[in-house]
C-alpha cells in the first residue's frame, strides 16, 4: 500500500512537471489544423447539416437542415433547406454578414448580434476553422471524460482567442485528445466573456476517430437547450466567386 502511494505520488509529480514542458514543445497552430481536419479537411467545403434542438424534457423541438459552403478566406454561404425557412440565405464574408429572405429578395446587412439570433450561426459553428480564426495557447494537460462513459483519458486544454471580430465566439476553451488531437469538448464564450455554449464532439469510430459525425451544443445563455448538429455530408467544393456576392444572391439563383 505504501509502495503504491509512493508510485502515485511519483506519477503525480512527473505529470505536474510534464505539463509545462509539453506546453513549451507543442505547436498549437499545428494542433488546431489537425483538430480542424476531423470536422472538415479542406479549405473549400460543402457541408450538409441537420440541426435538432432538444428541449429540457429530451424531446426534439425543432429540426433544421442547412447546406454550408465554407470557402477559403473566411467566406461562407449558409442555405436554409427546411420548409419553414426555405429560400433564406446567410452570407458571411469575413466580419461582414447579409441575410436574404425569399419574400423580399434584397440583401440586408446584419450585425454579428443579429447573426446569432438565427440558427444559421449554428451552421457557422459547424464549419468554423479554429486554425484560421483563432490563436491559442496550451493551458495544460488534463483528464477528460470519454464519450459514452469510458475511462478518463489525458487531453490537452487549449485557450483560443479570436483573431477577427466577426466570429460568433471570441474565446474558446478547447480540449483535444492527447494522442490523436481530436476535439473532445469546447466552451464557447461571446464578446461579453459570457459562456454561451458548451460543445461535445461525437466521432465515427470512437476508438480510432477519423471524422466528427455529430456535435452537441448545450446552450448556457438563455434557455439551456441542447442542440445536436449532425453532419450529413461533407465534400470538397469551391463555389463560383459570384455566389459570394450578396447582390447575385438577391437574384434568387439556383445554387445546387
Amino acid at each position, binding site marked *: 500500500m505504501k509502495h503504491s502511494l509512493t508510485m502515485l505520488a511519483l506519477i503525480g509529480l512527473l505529470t505536474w512537471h510534464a505539463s509545462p514542458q509539453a506546453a513549451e514543445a507543442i505547436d498549437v497552430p499545428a494542433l488546431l489544423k489537425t483538430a480542424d481536419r476531423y470536422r472538415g479537411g479542406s479549405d473549400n467545403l460543402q457541408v450538409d447539416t441537420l440541426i435538432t434542438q432538444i428541449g429540457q424534457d429530451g424531446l426534439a423541438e*425543432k429540426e433544421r437542415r442547412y447546406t454550408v459552403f465554407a470557402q477559403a478566406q473566411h467566406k461562407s454561404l449558409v442555405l436554409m433547406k427546411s420548409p419553414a425557412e426555405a429560400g433564406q440565405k446567410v452570407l458571411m464574408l469575413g466580419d461582414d454578414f447579409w441575410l436574404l429572405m425569399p419574400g*423580399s429578395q*434584397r440583401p440586408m*446587412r446584419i*450585425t454579428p*448580434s443579429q447573426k446569432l*439570433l438565427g440558427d444559421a450561426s449554428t451552421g457557422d459553428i459547424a464549419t468554423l476553422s479554429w486554425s484560421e480564426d483563432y490563436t491559442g495557447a496550451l493551458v495544460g494537460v488534463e483528464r477528460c471524460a470519454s464519450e459514452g462513459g469510458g475511462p478518463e483519458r489525458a487531453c490537452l486544454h487549449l485557450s483560443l482567442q479570436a483573431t477577427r471580430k466577426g466570429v460568433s465566439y471570441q474565446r474558446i476553451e478547447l480540449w483535444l485528445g492527447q494522442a490523436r488531437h481530436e476535439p473532445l469538448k469546447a466552451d464557447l464564450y461571446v464578446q461579453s466573456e459570457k459562456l454561451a455554449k458548451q460543445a461535445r464532439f461525437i466521432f465515427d469510430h470512437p476508438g480510432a476517430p477519423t471524422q466528427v459525425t455529430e456535435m452537441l451544443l448545450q446552450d448556457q445563455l438563455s434557455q439551456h437547450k441542447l442542440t445536436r448538429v449532425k453532419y450529413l455530408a461533407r465534400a470538397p467544393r469551391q463555389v463560383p466567386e459570384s455566389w459570394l456576392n450578396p*447582390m447575385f444572391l438577391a437574384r434568387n439563383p439556383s445554387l445546387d
Partner: protein
Amino acid sequence: MHCAAISMCLLLLAGNISCAHAEEGLNLSGEDRFGLLPRHANTRGPLAAALALQPSLAKPPQDSAQLALELRGRWQQWVADVWMASERPRGGPSRTEAHVNELNFSGELAGWQWSTGKKIVSWDVGYAYRPNDVVQQEARRSLLDNTPEGKPLLQLERFGAEDALSLVLVHPQRLGNDGLEGARFDREPALAARAYQRFGALDAYGFARWGRHTGASLGMALAWVAGDEWELHASLRALQRHDGWQAAPGSAGTPLAANPWQVQTQGRASQVLLGLNWTGAQRQGLLFEAWHDGSAPSAGQWRDWTARNSALIGQGRQPGLPASLQSAVAGNLAWQTSPMAGPGLQRDNLFLRLSWQPEPWQLTLDGLYQPADHGRIWTAGLQWQGDRWRLNASWRVQAGPARSVLAQLPTQRSGVLAATRAF
C-alpha cells in the same frame, strides 16, 4: 363555399406535387394559410361621414376569413410564383383572386446575367420606408408578410467580387402606350439602374431612374455595420417630377360632379431616410427610422383637405337638405378618401420597432408617428414558428387627434390571426 372547396383541393394538390416532382429537376415549394382578418370601421373621417349620410354608398371595412395558397416552382432557368386566395367577408359572398408574383426566364451571356418576365426586384436599405425601391416599390409595414407581386421587366446584371451593376427596364409592354391611364406610381414604364460597391463593413449604392413621364431621379444609399450590435443606414433620392394626389383648384367646399382628387404629375421632390438597428445579447432588438417623403401631400394640402371635409360635413348636416344634394355631399365625402390611397400620407415620419425573439416566439411592438398632425399607428405582433407551421397574431390601431390624417383612415383597428403551413 364553392371557391373555398376549390382552394382546399389546390392546397392538397400542391402538397402532393411537391413530393412527386422533387426528384425530376422541378423544385416546388410553397405555403398555405388560413387567416381571420378582423376590421373595425372608423367612426371618424370622411368615409364615416359619407356613410352616415348615405349608408348604401359603400361597404365599410369588414371582418373576413381568408384561405390562401402560394406556390413557388423552379425548373431549369424558369422561376414561377403563383398566389391565390379566397376571402369571405362577414355576411357577404366569397371573393377569389389569383395573381402571378413571378414568372421569369434567366440566363447568362458574355458575363452578364439576364432575366425577362415578371420578377420581384427589391432595392434600397430601409425597412419601414425605402426611397430607392424604384422598381418594385413594395408595400411595407403590412400586418402579415406577403410576397410582393413582381413587375414585368427586362434585367441585365453584372457581378464582380465586391461590386455589381443592375439595369432594369420595367413595364416595357407600356412603352408604346402614350396615355397616362394605368401608368401612374409604380406602373410607369421606366429604366432603372443600381450600382453597388462594398467597402468592408459599408455597403454603398447609387441609383438612377428615368420614368417616361416623371423624368429623372438620382439616389444613393449606405448601410454600415458600426459594431457587433449596431447597424446604421441612410438613403437619399432627388426626383425631377413625381406622381401624387392633387385636388382640383376651386374645390374648397362645394359638392362637385366629379372627384376633385386626381393623380397628377407634380414637380421636384426629395426623399430622405435615416435609420438604425440595435440587437442585444438577450435577443431583443430596436429599429428606428426617420424619413422625409417630399412626394407625399404637403401640410397645406392636408389643411385644404380638412377644410373641405368640414365644409361638406357641415352641408350634410343642414336640416331639410334635399335627398339629391345629400347624396352628392356623401359622394364627395367618399371621394375625400382618395389621397389616403397614396404611397405616403404625411411627409415627415418617425418609426420605432421593439422586438424580442425568445425561440420559437417573436414579439414585436411598433409605432409610426407623424409630427405634422400627431397621427399615430400602433401595431403589436406575436409569432410562433415551428418546423412547418407558423402562427401569427397582430393588432393595429390608428390613433391621434381627431383631425390627424391617420385617425381618419377608413379602418381604425385591424388585425390578423393566421396559421401558415410551409411545404
